[in-house]
């Protein structure tokens, strides 16, 4: 297969994901609404009595909520494969003369695009309510979001490719998504933590994403952005490799 048609296949699958995303209005709306509730209801409520490191609480959790939007959007996206599989849509793609790595790549780019649309929407709202100080910082955050989304979407696809039925959905929520979110430092600063939480935080790829977003939007970093970027790239590489393998082995 020539390079040309390889990228045409990737493009075809990517395009499909984008069209589907924008045509399922419920998905777009809920992807934006949930983070907003965290910022205004949770952040506004707790922020009334708490301020962290000199910034108001809503401003502090904004990068964390961006990470949450990326995490939840990515994993949900990955798990949509199960629905594709319930219909025969996935079969129709798998039976096409396309290397499975191209299918994975197209799906990954599609998921990243969906997530970036959500992130951009949230950043615009953040600018309006001045949780985000400047447009330049928002643009920087979008660059960071690409990296975080690559990592999380590949993780989502790894999970989706290995799930056989939607029944495992709640398990993934309870054992992957919430623990990753809650131990990422999205809602509280990672200082003076109990030792066990400290270990979990360090193993959680999302912590590095939160730190990166905090650097972009608050100007503070606890680990240094070089480490953040390297760790996220490392995790992405592992997830992409595992996910491609899972797609190659996928049977119907």
């Amino acid at each position, binding site marked *: *297969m020539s390079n040309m*048609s390889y990228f*045409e*296949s990737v*493009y*075809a*699958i990517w*395009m*499909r994901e984008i*069209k*589907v995303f924008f*045509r*399922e209005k419920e998905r777009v709306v809920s992807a934006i609404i949930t983070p907003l509730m965290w910022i205004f209801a949770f952040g506004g409520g707790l922020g009334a009595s708490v301020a962290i490191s000199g910034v108001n609480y809503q401003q502090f959790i904004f990068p964390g909520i961006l990470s949450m939007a990326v995490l939840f959007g990515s994993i949900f996206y990955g798990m949509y494969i199960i629905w594709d599989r319930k*219909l*025969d*849509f996935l*079969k*129709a*793609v*798998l*039976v*096409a*003369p*396309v*290397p499975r790595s191209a299918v994975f790549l197209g799906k990954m780019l599609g998921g990243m695009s969906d997530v970036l649309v959500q992130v951009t929407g949230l950043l615009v709202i953040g600018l309006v309510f001045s949780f985000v100080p400047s447009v330049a910082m928002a643009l920087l955050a979008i660059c960071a979001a690409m990296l975080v989304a690559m990592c999380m979407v590949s993780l989502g696809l790894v999970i989706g490719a290995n799930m056989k039925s939607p029944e495992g959905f709640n398990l993934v929520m309870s054992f992957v998504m919430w623990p990753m979110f809650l131990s990422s430092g999205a809602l509280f600063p990672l200082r003076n933590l109990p030792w066990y939480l400290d270990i979990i935080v360090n193993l959680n790829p999302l912590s590095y994403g939160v730190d990166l977003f905090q650097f972009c939007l608050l100007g503070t970093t606890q680990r240094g952005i070089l480490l953040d970027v390297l760790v996220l790239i490392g995790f992405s590489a592992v997830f992409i490799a595992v996910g491609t393998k899972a797609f190659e082995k996928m*049977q*119907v």
Partner: protein
Amino acid sequence: MAAKKSAISIRALSKKYGKLCAVDKISLEIPEGEVFALLGPNGAGKTTTLSMLCGLLEPSAGSASVAGFDVEKQALAVRQSIGVVFQQPSVDDLLSGKENLEMHALLYGVPADGRKERIEYMLKLVGLSERQNSNVKEYSGGMRRRLEIARGLMHHPKVLFLDEPTVGLDPQTRSHIWKYIHEMPKREGTTIVFTTHYLEEAEQFADRVAIIDHGKVLAVGKPSDLVAQLGGDTVVLGTADQKTLMKMMKRMKFAKNVRLENGKVCASISDLHQNLPKLLRTAKSVNSIEIRPATLNEVFIKYTGANIREDSAEGGFWERMMSRNK
């Protein structure tokens, strides 16, 4: 027939799920250009066989080649040579008919030069030109099927696989679909393999039929040959004394395959209009009579011992969706 090249050759192909043998050492040769039917009830192993031929499922044992390529070792080349229409809808709801074809044209490497024309041609061929920009969500079941057939044939495949192409559709739409399936590939010389549990579809549209049940091929041949092998129409006789009647009938030359079916004596009678009076003159104790004309259904009963309709209650995807919504 012997001069033709094989489009598909299957050698002792098997698929096991734990102890269950879904496909049990199936062997078949299907020559190029043939329309071939896999006929059997739901759960007979038809779809599993098809999935293995498409390279979507790994065989447990045996081998198969499609268009000259081994399904396991040359999966990509196989996939390049085939078109598939799945049992459940596999076109994308949220894309329009045209967008679905555009996407698959890219996936199948239909050359950019002439791609647009090919898509337009296929849409016209299946009668969807006017609805090409509507989302598939708004299509009827028959329109979806037609779109899938267009998709399956767009890249000039050597072999087209269709899994229950008309299940869940009304009779009028079914005959419509068959018009497309039957005419188009003939024009392009495509070999067609379809599965069905509608006997009349196999009888009417297939050059040859393989009767499959419990993962095994029970009979292969032209529908007319298979029917001819029955040796005539089936007569079912009710009597108080079955043993005597059976003994007597077994001596008659025109009665074949004499057997008991639900307490009644059953046999295939050749030249029914001449031989039935003879039979009734000799057999005095008959108290009921039923005649079943020689059809593929009788062939099916002969080989499987059951009527195909009895265990075909499970409908297609759409029927199931509909009943869920009720």
